[in-house]
């Protein structure tokens, strides 16, 4: 039985562009109308730009499905959730929903800083659609789940941000709707709490509840959802089994540029001294993988023309994070070379880089001190997450994720009493 049917849903926004003005004020509207009443054409040009946050979206969701929604920022994921939650109205199309819906678009909606934890549980609970009797029944469970027993009568403005989030999530975790809509709430809170709340959501879904879950965290989507919708620029471009959709999402969105090549020195980047011929990152995919993840070893191949007679040259490779911090820098030996084509190769082992986006810059150096040419961001690639046998889905910290030998054993077992 399909509990949600979405037919031809579109949402249009009109963006006003007015020269030198921030927004439309009442004065603008009045003067515009007055002027047009007199028949005067105004000088201020207001241009309207149509923007489709969603365009012709169709899908249906069966009872008990756990549906992930993935896509870049601005792809229309949140707009879709808000339409399903009746918060915004679509411009065209129709949605049918069978069953009681609870939407969780933020943690602690409506929390008032001056009110106590107790008062806020009632406030937030009833905003999420719980009756007071329901809240009273669940009250102790909520408080225990959040672990705020001691601070029930403290205003939440005195809460730590962790307590605040825990209380907010605890309330929504005790909702009992047939359909639950969740937006990015796992992005907040500490790792332990994330694990706890994801576990709670999975328990809920085991009891036949339908869940719609938006997240940037693909690992969490993979762990929780059996089906996935992939949005891009307001359109639903793919739907189906989670693993398939996520694989194609990764291959489509990654800004991967693994190879660059120039055939003749004339058009190649460089200068009179050196010209780049080719730079390529070759992943050594294990199994049938088609994208780089934390396990994948990679080889960087680099070729350049040297146009100097007898120069002492070496290469220096920088691997940078997306934010531009250098994660490591490796160099070759410096050796004398004559004119000609020179090739170099460097291997980055698997189980070394953490998941994330990286760029590689290459530098040709003379006499170990003088950079002749720097090729910035020559290669761009993403490393995807991969975990096995780990029930935690938070962002793995650190720039590198090496697997060093790390031994653990029982030193002195204590005999258990019978």
């Amino acid at each position, binding site marked *: 039985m399909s509990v949600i049917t979405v037919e031809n849903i579109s949402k249009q926004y009109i963006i006003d562009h007015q020269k030198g003005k921030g927004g439309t004020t009442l004065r603008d509207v009045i003067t515009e109308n007055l002027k047009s009443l007199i028949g005067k054409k105004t000088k201020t040009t207001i241009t309207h730009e149509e923007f489709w946050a969603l365009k012709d979206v169709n899908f249906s969701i069966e009872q008990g499905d756990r549906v992930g929604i993935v896509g870049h920022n601005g792809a229309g994921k949140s707009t879709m959730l808000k339409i399903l939650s009746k918060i915004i*109205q679509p411009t065209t199309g129709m949605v049918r*929903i069978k069953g009681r819906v609870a939407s969780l678009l933020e943690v602690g909606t409506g929390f008032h800083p001056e009110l106590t934890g107790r008062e806020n549980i009632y*406030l937030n609970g009833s905003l999420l659609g719980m009756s007071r009797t329901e809240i009273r029944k669940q009250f102790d469970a909520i408080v225990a789940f959040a672990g705020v027993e001691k601070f029930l009568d403290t205003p939440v403005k005195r809460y730590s941000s962790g307590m605040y989030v825990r209380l907010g999530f605890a309330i929504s975790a005790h909702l009992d709707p047939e359909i639950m809509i969740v937006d990015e709430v796992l992005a907040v809170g500490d790792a332990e709490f994330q694990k706890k709340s994801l576990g709670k959501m999975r328990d809920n879904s085991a009891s036949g509840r339908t869940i719609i879950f938006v997240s940037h965290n693909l690992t969490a989507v993979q762990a929780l959802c059996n089906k996935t919708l992939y949005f891009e620029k307001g359109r639903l471009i793919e739907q189906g089994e989670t693993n398939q959709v996520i694989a194609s999402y990764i291959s489509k969105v990654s800004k991967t540029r693994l190879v660059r090549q120039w055939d003749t020195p004339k058009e190649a980047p460089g200068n009179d001294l050196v010209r780049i011929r080719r730079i390529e990152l070759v992943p050594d995919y294990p199994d049938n993988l088609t994208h780089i993840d934390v396990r994948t070893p990679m080889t960087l191949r680099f070729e350049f023309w040297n146009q100097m007679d007898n120069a002492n040259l070496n290469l220096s490779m920088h691997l940078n994070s997306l934010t531009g911090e250098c994660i490591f820098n490796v160099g070759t030996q410096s050796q004398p070379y004559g004119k000609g084509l020179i090739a170099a190769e460097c291997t980055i082992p698997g189980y070394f880089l953490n998941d994330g986006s990286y760029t590689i810059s290459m530098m040709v150096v003379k006499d170990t001190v003088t950079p002749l040419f720097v090729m910035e961001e020559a290669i761009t690639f993403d490393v995807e997450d991969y975990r096995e046998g780990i029930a935690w889905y938070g962002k793995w910290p650190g720039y590198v994720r090496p697997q060093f030998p790390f031994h653990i054993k029982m030193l002195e077992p204590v005999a258990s009493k019978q």
Partner: protein
Amino acid sequence: MQTHEVIIEPGRSERHYWADLWRNRELMYILSMRDVSVRYKQTALGTAWGLIRPLTTMLIMVFVFSKIAKLPPDPGVPYPLMVLGGITVWTFFSTAFTQISNSVTLNSNLVTKVYFPRLIMPISAVAVSFVDFLVSLGLFILLAIWYQFIPDWHLLLLPAFIVLALMASFAFGLFFAAVNVRFRDIGQLIPFVVQVGFYVCPIAYSSRLVADKANEWWAPFYWLNPMVGIIDGFRWALLGERAYFNPKSLLLSVSIVFVCLALSLYFFRKRENTFVDDI
């Protein structure tokens, strides 16, 4: 909970809007309690403020209008009692009106995150003004005892005028609340409207003074103000026949309020679905 089907379509207002509103009455109550309990948090004097404000306003007005300007009260009515009656109902109307007008924008964090019938916000917003009103009314009773002023059967009509003042605040507030979402100019306009209203309404003076000047060109306009009939009626219910009362003016007030309320409600309902896009 039986399964019910919800259909979301452009331009479709909830078919069961009023039933939905009723189902959300607990939310209405909780939002009201939120406003009431937040009102005097972290104040040293707390709820005493509800008493201090009408009391000082009354004392100042007695000083300015009675002692200095020598405005006459209705015959047989102590001037402070007449003024406090006016202040009580006017403050009720004006704070309710202000709260309603700001209700949607003040709750913008809710509008963008949860669905509920948006009328809940203005309705729950009046709770605070009603609490203040009760305090002010209590003050009036104390003052009436002080003047040994005994009300008569007119007092039974008091609830009707309270409801009427409330309806008037919705009649104007709902419209402003909806416009306020798009144009924050309303936030600037409201205190000004309230200030002007304080003087064009019979608070410091009795409508009798205007009735005596019926030949002046502006006199007919005075009675067009719907609050005139309501304030006069409220005082009449408290003070009895000695207070000025004009049934014709009350009738005019009631009809204006009803028409405005219907229009405002229609406007609010029409706009509420797009609040989230404009807020």
